[in-house]
């Protein structure tokens, strides 16, 4: 048993984690650090998963499809009651923003780790959230204010008529949506009916509610969001903002804290808007207010996520807090702690920088299509300032039923240039085999001048700058040469240099190259970014002075 004292008493004795993957493991870890027991739930696809192994007790929910497992409110509440858990943490995705789930947990006499059900319902309804924003004097993105059910011909006609007023291009969004799912971009009026139906189908599949609405597309825009915490007394504070502009089709790919390039006054204004909205909504526990920032520097309220965000670690690293720990304390009725209040005071004057990349089982060469499969090699980076949140390892099968996110790689450093250099180094150390991931994309982005100098940060930037085929073509050439040379080398696995290294033992050949090279210069702690020649942009590839002649 962990050592306890009165001040650090665990908020609960036992909690249940209603999720899977890296976030479930992350919550189990926080629970254990707080001295609480953790109960996991799992589907048949996850019986051997890391979150199950880490938990003190695990309860099966059902078959792999989410609707038969992680989306089953009845089964999860029953598991919580049967296991003697006192609180339920929903993580992100799945049931995390379902008011009905939070209500069912409370009705079973347990504590839901998140905002109250009524607040989730009000803010989870994207249209109601926009009305709250208006009340709180926070400008929202223009669009329709009523939800549309595409099964109703009269409503379908009405929304098509309203589209002209919103203006094209516009976005069809799921009223119950979040996480970028169920969004369709419509450029011209004749595309609208098909987009409404497709968007509604995806919304129904993802959220169990096919209602959609229209929103004007603000472009180019940065995506900036504010982390809020609130307690039962009605006090709400902002823990700083994150920039999540590097997106593809509304899926965040890279997130950082703080948002680069904002002045302290802009930060204060942004944080104040988010807090106003949180107070107006009666927010408790944790939530994130998302804004679009247009070219003129104006912030437009987008939506509120009434849950822990995927990208919460960047805020943790910059604020020095553990957000999941704070969530548990707040859920147990504690007021915002002095630690949290001090971090909120510092939030507009950040003194360090954190960046997260989402490594997903997706193929960047095939328009980021899902690429599930079995991982054969899994080597994660290490060393100063590196955090890896993942729940997979070599040998694991990535199931096709769930979100393709398999790993979050987060770096922390004194400032943004140092964090970028550290991230580049960390990506160089990362080795994944057996499945295709978004790793090549991240390597390429970190070599882009527009990403490095932040001048071009915008949600549209990825589509304009990512050239997957060119990046892959170079890899194909290198892979073919390497495989060919390895083949000519005969029993190549015995070591020495394959065909090309004939006559030279591999150790000395490699040693000569490294010794004579210009790859590593300076002292260990001098992290300098080589912004020089283009050949550096090839990720792990480095050019060195040719060996002695």
């Amino acid at each position, binding site marked *: 048993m962990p050592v306890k004292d009165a001040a650090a008493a665990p908020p609960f004795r036992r909690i249940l984690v209603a999720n899977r993957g890296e976030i479930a493991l992350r919550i189990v870890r926080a629970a254990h650090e707080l001295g609480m027991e953790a109960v996991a739930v799992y589907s048949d696809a996850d019986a051997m998963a890391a979150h199950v192994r880490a938990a003190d007790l695990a309860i099966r929910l059902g078959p792999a499809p989410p609707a038969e497992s992680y989306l089953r409110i009845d089964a999860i509440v029953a598991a919580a009651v049967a296991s003697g858990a006192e609180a339920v943490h929903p993580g992100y995705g799945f049931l995390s923003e379902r008011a009905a789930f939070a209500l069912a947990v409370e009705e079973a006499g347990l504590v839901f780790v998140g905002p109250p059900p009524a607040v989730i319902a009000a803010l989870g309804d994207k249209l109601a959230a926009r009305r709250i924003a208006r009340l709180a004097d926070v400008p929202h993105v223009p669009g329709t204010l009523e939800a549309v059910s595409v099964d109703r011909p009269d409503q379908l006609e009405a929304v098509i008529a309203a589209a002209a007023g919103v203006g094209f291009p516009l976005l069809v969004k799921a009223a119950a949506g979040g996480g970028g*799912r169920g969004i369709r971009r419509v450029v011209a009026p004749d595309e609208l009916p098909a987009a409404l139906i497709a968007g509604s*189908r995806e919304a129904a599949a*993802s959220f169990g509610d096919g209602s959609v609405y229209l929103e004007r597309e603000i472009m180019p825009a940065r995506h900036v969001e504010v982390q809020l915490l609130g307690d039962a007394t009605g006090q709400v504070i902002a823990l700083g903002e994150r920039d999540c502009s590097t997106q593809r089709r509304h899926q965040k790919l890279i997130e950082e804290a703080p948002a680069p390039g904002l002045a302290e006054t802009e930060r204060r204004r942004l944080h104040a808007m988010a807090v106003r909205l949180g107070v107006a909504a009666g927010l408790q526990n944790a939530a994130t207010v998302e804004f679009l920032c247009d070219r003129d520097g104006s912030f437009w309220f987008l939506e509120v996520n009434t849950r822990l965000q995927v990208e919460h670690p960047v805020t943790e690293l910059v604020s020095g807090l553990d957000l999941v720990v704070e969530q548990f304390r707040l859920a147990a009725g504690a007021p915002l702690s002095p630690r949290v209040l001090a971090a909120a005071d510092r939030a507009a004057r950040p003194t360090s920088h954190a960046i997260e990349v989402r490594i997903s089982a*997706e193929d960047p*060469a*095939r328009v980021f*299509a*899902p*690429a*599930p499969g079995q991982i054969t*090699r899994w080597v994660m980076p290490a060393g100063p300032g590196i955090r890896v949140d993942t729940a997979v390892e070599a040998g694991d099968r990535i199931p*096709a039923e*769930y*979100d393709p996110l398999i790993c979050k790689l987060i770096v922390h450093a004194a400032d943004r240039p140092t964090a970028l250099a550290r991230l580049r180094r960390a990506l160089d150390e990362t080795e*994944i*085999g*057996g499945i295709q*991931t*978004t790793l*090549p*994309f991240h*390597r390429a982005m970190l070599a882009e001048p527009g990403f490095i100098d932040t001048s071009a940060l915008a949600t549209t930037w990825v589509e304009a700058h990512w050239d997957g*085929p060119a990046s*892959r073509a170079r*890899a*194909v050439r*290198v*892979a*073919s*040469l*390497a*495989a*060919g*040379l*390895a*083949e*000519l*080398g005969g029993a190549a*696995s015995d070591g*020495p*240099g394959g*065909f*090309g*290294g*004939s*006559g*030279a033992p591999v150790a000395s*050949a*490699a040693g000569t190259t490294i010794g004579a*090279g210009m790859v590593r210069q300076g002292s260990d702690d001098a992290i300098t970014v080589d912004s020089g020649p283009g*050949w550096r942009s*090839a990720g*792990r*590839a*480095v*050019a*060195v*002075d*040719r060996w002695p*002649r």
Partner: protein
Amino acid sequence: MPDGDIDARAVRVGVAASARLEGDPAITVAPPPDASTHLPQDGDPGPAFPFVDGIATDVRLERFGEVRARLVESAAGPAGTDLRTDLQLGPVRVDPGHGTRLREVVVDGWRIEVEVEFERRAVLRARARRGAGVASHGGPVEVRAIIPGRVVAVSVVVGDSVEAGQQILVVEAMKMQNELRAPREGAVERVGVAVGDTIEVGDLLVVIH
């Protein structure tokens, strides 16, 4: 070119058929015709110039155990420099159907499934394929699953005529809806799946004649 002109040691390397994208090239890698003339000078462990597509190339592979390796290309970077690329070589698997050797090579995070075979054999196979190609011209096209997932919509039935690019199926994988489109125009000869079916990579979905 008569087979006798092909170096018996030469290998053809390219992206494996299952992973190949349009435009992926295959290259030929061979030892120099007379390796002895390229032996390093006194104390110089310099490269031995393998022939890549028939051209002597300053490139070599350094191995660091079973998996890790580094390709060093001397001509690829600015003058006087080497371009070094770290990579991982997977184990070799023999494809029993074709006699080719397959291996995964990971470069810059790209997972490239590579196929290696002797150049002589590749030439013979290409010749055989050309022969067969004439007979099968205009034959049925099998649309197979390239991602695993669940079928959420089937837009065609047997007998339908479809245009190239027309949506034929919607597959849900990892919460995303993926539309599958007809590779060419024709008549739907067979539909192998129904709504709700779980599919794996390679499953036959639709045959278009």
